[in-house]
């Protein structure tokens, strides 16, 4: 393989995953663990916020918001408790990088939690783990207990006046809880439904107190930045998208998996790193960052996969979950399956998302069972128009993304179902009562 391509691999967050027992505190300490914490606690909290701002770190959970700026929004000297909440509710279709991090390197997250809590002056942190992620939660709970025993958590950490408690809180199966305000409602013991913003969590978050909600990968990036500095972090990635990124490759490639690379790598390069397309498969469509990001095609194979590059191509970097499909996969059926997901996961709070997804699923069923009309395509786009920007949270926009993008790039595939050139994929029994 070309050396200049291999040089784009930058294992930072993934580097300990292969070590046997990296999840144990003694292994972690042997591999630089908790060195950044000692360094951080010797600094002023504001210096840490400045460092993270300087590093250009942007949130790894999908939105890419600058992390240092988010921390800086927390009002200080306000006599209210502050909270750090880690969003570990990984569930965006295609995304599979946070679970392995928590399973194989849980202390990296916990060290980041302690440093981030110190920076924003929080004495209580919660890690909200997706309920189904039992392996990650098991290792995390064990790591939290180890960290308490070692004096990294609890009262007067490392002899300083700073104290912190961490609770690992398992969810119970709801994709919507990955949305930060729904997550906060869920953590407060309610149905996980998004809140109207403003006010934002920075001032009115958990228990209406100032709260930072950060993704697992974001928080786990903090110890290496503290240890090695902002300039080192920025030596990877691009000017506006700094640092390494874990790209999660799945689908029709030879070696699916996690590839941590310098940001701005292209799909062409990632496919080459992953051993190429599977025999007999040619790239047809792909998601740059999970199913909520508009589909791209083989024409976009050289788009730089950083926040700006993907946006310029009309999509979103999202969670860098690259689901790779070939000419053997059907973009109409794929979109239908994603829509079934959004329909199931819509929390029901707002009408455009709850009703729109329900009706779009029915429309897809009609098309896929060979009963579709040309008017159905207009109905779908019209429904999307009524969802995008009109829902409380991003779930509605996410649902419209594959619909609008697949219709833009693969309209012929829709017409082939409607005009009878593609045999029906679904039974028309699904349509009973649908119209």
């Amino acid at each position, binding site marked *: 393989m070309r050396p200049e391509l*291999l040089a784009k*691999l*930058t*294992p*930072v967050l*993934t*580097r300990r*995953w292969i070590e046997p027992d990296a999840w144990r505190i003694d292994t972690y300490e042997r591999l*630089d663990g908790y*060195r950044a914490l000692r*360094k*951080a606690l010797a600094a002023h909290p504001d*210096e*840490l916020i400045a*460092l993270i701002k300087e590093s250009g770190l942007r949130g790894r959970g999908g939105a890419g918001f600058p992390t240092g700026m988010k921390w800086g929004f927390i009002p200080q000297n306000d006599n209210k408790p502050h909270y750090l909440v880690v969003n570990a509710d*990984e*569930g965006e*279709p295609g*995304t*599979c990088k946070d679970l*392995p991090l928590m*399973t*194989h390197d849980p202390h990296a997250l916990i060290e980041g939690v302690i440093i981030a809590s110190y920076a924003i002056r929080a004495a*209580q942190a919660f890690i909200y783990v*997706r*309920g*189904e992620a*039992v*392996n990650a939660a*098991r*290792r995390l*709970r064990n790591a939290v207990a180890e960290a308490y025993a070692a004096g990294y958590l609890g009262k007067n950490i490392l002899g300083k006046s700073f104290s912190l408690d961490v*609770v690992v*809180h398992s969810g*119970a*199966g709801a994709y919507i809880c990955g949305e930060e305000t729904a997550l906060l409602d869920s*953590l*407060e*013991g309610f*149905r996980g439904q998004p809140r109207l913003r403003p006010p934002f969590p920075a001032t009115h978050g958990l228990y209406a107190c100032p709260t930072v909600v950060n993704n697992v990968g974001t928080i786990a990036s903090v110890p290496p930045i503290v240890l*090695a*500095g902002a*300039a*080192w972090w920025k030596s*990877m990635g691009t000017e506006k998208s700094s640092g390494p990124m874990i790209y*999660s490759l*799945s*689908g029709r490639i030879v070696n*699916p*998996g*996690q*590839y*941590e690379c310098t940001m701005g790598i292209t799909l062409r390069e990632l496919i080459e*790193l*992953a051993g190429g397309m599977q025999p007999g498969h040619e790239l047809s469509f792909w998601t740059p960052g999970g199913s909520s990001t508009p589909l791209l095609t083989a024409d976009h194979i050289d788009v730089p996969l950083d926040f700006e590059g993907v946006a310029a191509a009309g999509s979103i970097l999202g969670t860098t979950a690259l689901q790779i499909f070939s000419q053997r996969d059907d973009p109409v059926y*794929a979109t239908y*399956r*994603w829509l079934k*997901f959004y329909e199931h*996961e819509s929390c029901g709070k707002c009408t455009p998302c709850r009703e729109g997804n329900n009706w779009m699923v029915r429309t897809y069923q009609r098309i896929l069972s060979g009963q579709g009309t040309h008017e159905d395509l207009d109905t779908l786009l019209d429904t999307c128009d009524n969802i995008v920007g009109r829902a409380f949270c991003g779930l509605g926009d996410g649902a419209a993304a594959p619909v609008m993008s697949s219709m833009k790039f693969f309209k012929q595939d829709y017409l082939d179902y409607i005009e009878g050139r593609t045999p029906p994929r679904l039974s028309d029994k699904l349509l009973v009562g649908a119209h």
Partner: protein
Amino acid sequence: MMTDTSRTGRALIGMPTLLTGTGESFPQELREAAEEIIGRYPSDRTRSALLPLLHLVQSHEGYVSADGIGFCAGLLNLTRAEVAAVASFYTMYKREPAGDFLVSVCTNTMCDSLGGQAVFDELSSELGVGNDETTPDGTVTLEHAECLAACDYGPVVTVNYEFFDKVTPADAVELVRALRAGERPAPSRGARLCTLKEMSRQLAGYADDRPDAVADGLVGDATVAGLRLAQGNGITAPEFDPTTPIVPPKDGAS
């Protein structure tokens, strides 16, 4: 009507007039565990304990019964309707008695493309049950799941949320036959299998009390595909100096 509701439990949720029971028969140990869970959260914010308490109730009964709802409501000073509204929102709380082993098949787009729907259909036919239904012997509940965050191992099946990777329909049938024969096949990654009730206790926030279960499971190949490629070619991230100051020197020199 009463016979039906006592048998299934499902009809009770959302019908407050029929909700009865406060968990009087629950063991003292469960009450103590519940108090411990409530103590993890700020004393004026005990409602935060509701999700773990519902997992705890499920660890006792195998599902969230009307009794379990009354139990949580009493502990947190909530109405039954408030608790039932939360319990019915989340898919992991089962509303009727579930089997010892919850077999979840991912049928989201990627796993479906790689054969997940075929796995589900084969299991449904083998077990004679549909989505969210339990075999008459009470061993297996089958469900289709949305993305389980293991797309690099698709199609995936989980048993009580432990992963079985790259499963074919034949593999899946062999798996459920073993479960129904009282065996506990080893997952592809993660810990040895336990029952759904035992798993629910972990979900309530308790450490896995099986000796060494936390050490179970090797890292999967796909998880470290990029790392192995880097290591095999002597590639690392750029070197760094751990004494790099947090505050850069004022003159901007490096």
